[in-house]
């Protein structure tokens, strides 16, 4: 059996859905954050697979920019979580209900 584009895409979709599941059901902000990273990586995997199987470099350049933006997002996001913990002494999403009516 040869491995084709569809196998890579299925792995990518599985990663995306696992990340989505974590974002929806976990309580801890850090784990929600890890789920977001998983979803970003799933998109990267799909792009690299398309780039490889269509003989096109643009996908890989795009992945490079996504990795850059994700790195910036990691820095700011983790700083936000740490600042939040300092103010509220909690990183559980259910304790952060200030905006609830």
């Amino acid at each position: 059996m040869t491995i084709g584009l569809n196998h890579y895409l299925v792995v990518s979709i599985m990663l995306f859905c696992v990340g989505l599941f974590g974002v929806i059901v976990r309580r801890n902000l850090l784990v929600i954050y890890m789920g977001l990273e998983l979803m970003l990586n799933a998109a990267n995997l799909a792009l690299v697979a398309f780039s490889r199987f269509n003989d096109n470099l643009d996908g890989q350049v795009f992945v490079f920019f996504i990795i850059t933006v994700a790195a910036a997002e990691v820095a700011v996001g983790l700083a936000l979580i740490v600042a939040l913990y300092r103010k509220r002494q909690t990183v559980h999403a259910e304790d952060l209900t200030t905006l609830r009516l």
Partner: protein
Amino acid sequence: MSATFVMLAVLTVVSAVAVMLLRNLVHCALALAVTFAGLAGIYLQLNAQFVGFAQLLVYVGAVAILIVFAILLTRGREPPLQSVFSGSAIVGFGIAIVVFAVLATMTLSSRALGMEKPGEANASVAQIGEQLMTRYILPLEVAGLLLTVALIGAVIIAMRDKEPE
């Protein structure tokens, strides 16, 4: 070729599931590092050396370590005794399954799948560098600016507030 892919894919997906199911945060972070490493392996297996090594450097090297630091800085005083899942776990599982079904059917039935070019893509690092320096020079500069802004912003956000006197 196919055995490598299967092993890497299983490793990646299983560790991703572990990230979402494990109770201990440090274990989650370690499983996440394994997921990133597995993805880097898949990229290398896809003949994408540049992206593979960038993934290793940025994700396994930097992001995983940053997350571990964030875990250390936000250690709660009391260990959480309740479940790690919120009350909507069933709903979340259902949503994830539905999204998976929709994405998989749509992707696998799309006509783009049959149109792959059979040629061996040879995306060398030199070619990507050339593209980055010619066609994508403006996005590259913007990315650099974005990283600088994010760096300064992260420092300012995480800086300890001065106590009002």
